[in-house]
């Protein structure tokens, strides 16, 4: 086992970094909305699924890659705004548990609609396939998408950091995440902040949809469902109440998943989820407030 862990190839490392990056983006997308709305969006995976179907249809119609990506962004953004208006807004005053159940229902609804409309067999998104071929760097084969994903994830996180720290709406979002009531009293417009968070989170979902579709071109109704569950566990692992630890948690679980997937011997690789989630539970046993939070973590009292 030790030998297996040490025997990690560059390809595995690059893939693990890429998966970590993609999961970090998902964690941010979920964390931003959670920050302002106290809402854990389980249906985040279905936004990604919708974007993936957009890419698949675009390539079926013979559209060029960039047009497919545009369609993907349009579909995901429209859906995330619709989700906010139809579900999140009426539920804003409910407890986080009720909102989580509601998004769970939305997730199943969207998945069933996809199953009914597009069938269980799935569609192939082929227009971005060249990105899945390897690049040879000094004798080591690394898939292009791994590099692209690492770069894009880093760029997105950097842009987001700038948005949150250097712009007015970013400041308002952070204020709202800290204490929505007080922020509103000080003149922060609730709908603007929530709308902003939903939009940014939608953009991130579209980016993730493109990345995941390149790596796994077969788009089925349960596309990204497993990923969402893993990312949610990662967010809890990092620390649900703080954005940076939550993002780190998303990265950590993606990275661990990639490394484990490459390092486990073939006859054990089917037990990857067991190893991964058992590790999460064990870590939480030691650090119930999250792996990347310092101190006790404030108890929420509202």
């Amino acid at each position: 086992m030790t030998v297996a862990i040490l025997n990690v190839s560059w390809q595995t490392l690059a893939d693990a970094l890429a998966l970590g990056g993609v999961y970090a983006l998902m964690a941010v997308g979920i964390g931003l909305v959670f920050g302002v709305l106290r809402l854990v969006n389980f249906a985040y995976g279905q936004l990604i699924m919708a974007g993936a179907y957009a890419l698949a249809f675009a390539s079926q119609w013979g559209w060029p890659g960039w047009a497919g990506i545009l369609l993907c962004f349009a579909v995901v953004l429209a859906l995330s705004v619709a989700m906010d208006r139809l579900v999140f807004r009426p539920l804003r005053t409910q407890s986080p548990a009720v909102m989580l159940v509601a998004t769970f229902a939305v997730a199943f609804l969207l998945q069933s609609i996809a199953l009914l409309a597009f069938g269980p067999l799935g569609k192939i998104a082929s227009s971005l396939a060249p990105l899945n071929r390897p690049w040879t760097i000094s004798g080591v084969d690394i898939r292009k998408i791994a590099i692209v994903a690492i770069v894009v994830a880093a760029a997105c996180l950097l842009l987001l950091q700038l948005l949150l720290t250097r712009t007015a709406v970013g400041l308002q979002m952070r204020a709202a995440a800290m204490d929505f009531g007080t922020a509103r009293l000080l003149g922060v417009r609730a709908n603007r902040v929530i709308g902003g968070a939903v939009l940014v989170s939608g953009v991130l979902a579209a980016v993730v949809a493109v990345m995941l579709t390149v790596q796994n071109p077969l788009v089925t109704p349960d596309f990204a469902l497993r990923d969402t569950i893993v990312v949610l566990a990662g967010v809890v692992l990092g620390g649900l109440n703080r954005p940076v630890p939550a993002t780190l948690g998303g990265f950590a679980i993606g990275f661990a998943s990639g490394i484990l997937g490459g390092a486990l011997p073939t006859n054990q690789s089917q037990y990857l989820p067991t190893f991964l989630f058992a590790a999460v539970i064990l870590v939480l046993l030691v650090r119930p407030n999250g792996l990347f939070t310092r101190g006790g973590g404030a108890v929420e009292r509202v």
Partner: protein
Amino acid sequence: MRRLGELLAPVALVLGAALLGAVVSASTQTYFVDTLVKVTIVVALYLFIGNSGVLSFGHVSFVAIGAWTAGVLSVPAQEKPAIMPNLAHFLRTTTVGNVPSLALAALAGLVLALLVGLPLMRLSGLAAGIATFGVLEIADNMLRYYEKIGPGLNAFSSVPETTGVWQAAIGALLAIGLAFAYQRSRFGRMLRATREDPAAASAAGISVYRQRLLAFALSGGVAGFAGGLYVHLLPLNIDSLYLDLTFITLAMLVVGGSGSLLGAVVGALAVSGLDSFLAAAENGVDVLGLHLDLPAGTSLIVVGVVMAAVLVLRPSGLTGGRELRLPGRRPAPPSAAEAA
């Protein structure tokens, strides 16, 4: 005695469903038995979620463990090699009857829930709810691929089909009785106090962790028991004990109203009825002279819409989270324990 309405209303509903199920044709009867098993699962969910206010997406893993325990132990010995060729020696040579298999299923659910509850119940409410997904994933993964403890991807064929209307009804009644006894006990009251205000409950000397753990273990036991009933009804496989069942049982609890035992039972009956009707309609059915033939997959969409609509329009569910109170002399002031 006024509080007996809390127990009588769910019991009457279950008995009514069982009586109705006993008189209909054999093919329709399956739906009723299935519904009664779902009632048991939803009561298990209620026991934890309703009393603690903490979500759990992990209970179906306890149902699955119960189904595996009862299933593996009650397949006749000579048929085991056919569906479970890689079974461990002890399980291959041991076969038990109907009732012991159900008891062991409950025990397995209880022990597993206790073990995973030890770390998970230390988390804050929302984080605990999300982390229970991890339990579901681990259980699904292990049962799917670890063939020493069960059939893996195969279905549990040749399990004696002992769960008829009456066994299912007795099972549901046992679950309801346990849930009622628990919520009337001091432990149930303490847990509901933590649901209303964790800080105040802690200040009053209640350990949120211990109360949640107790309820989690108990409800895991009921869920395991329900899994035992389920595997004695249908040749289950691992795919029927995963996210779809998690979704439909949570929908039942939420639609009925997660705050009361009555809500759990009403929700399970209402959503099961709707779901069974739609499932029948997917195969074509005649209603009021109209021929209805819905495409496969409609039932999950309709249940999803109903669940979302109930959450938006009436978040506390059809029953509003209330129990039925029999009329009595006093106009029911909230007792001190409940107000705390």
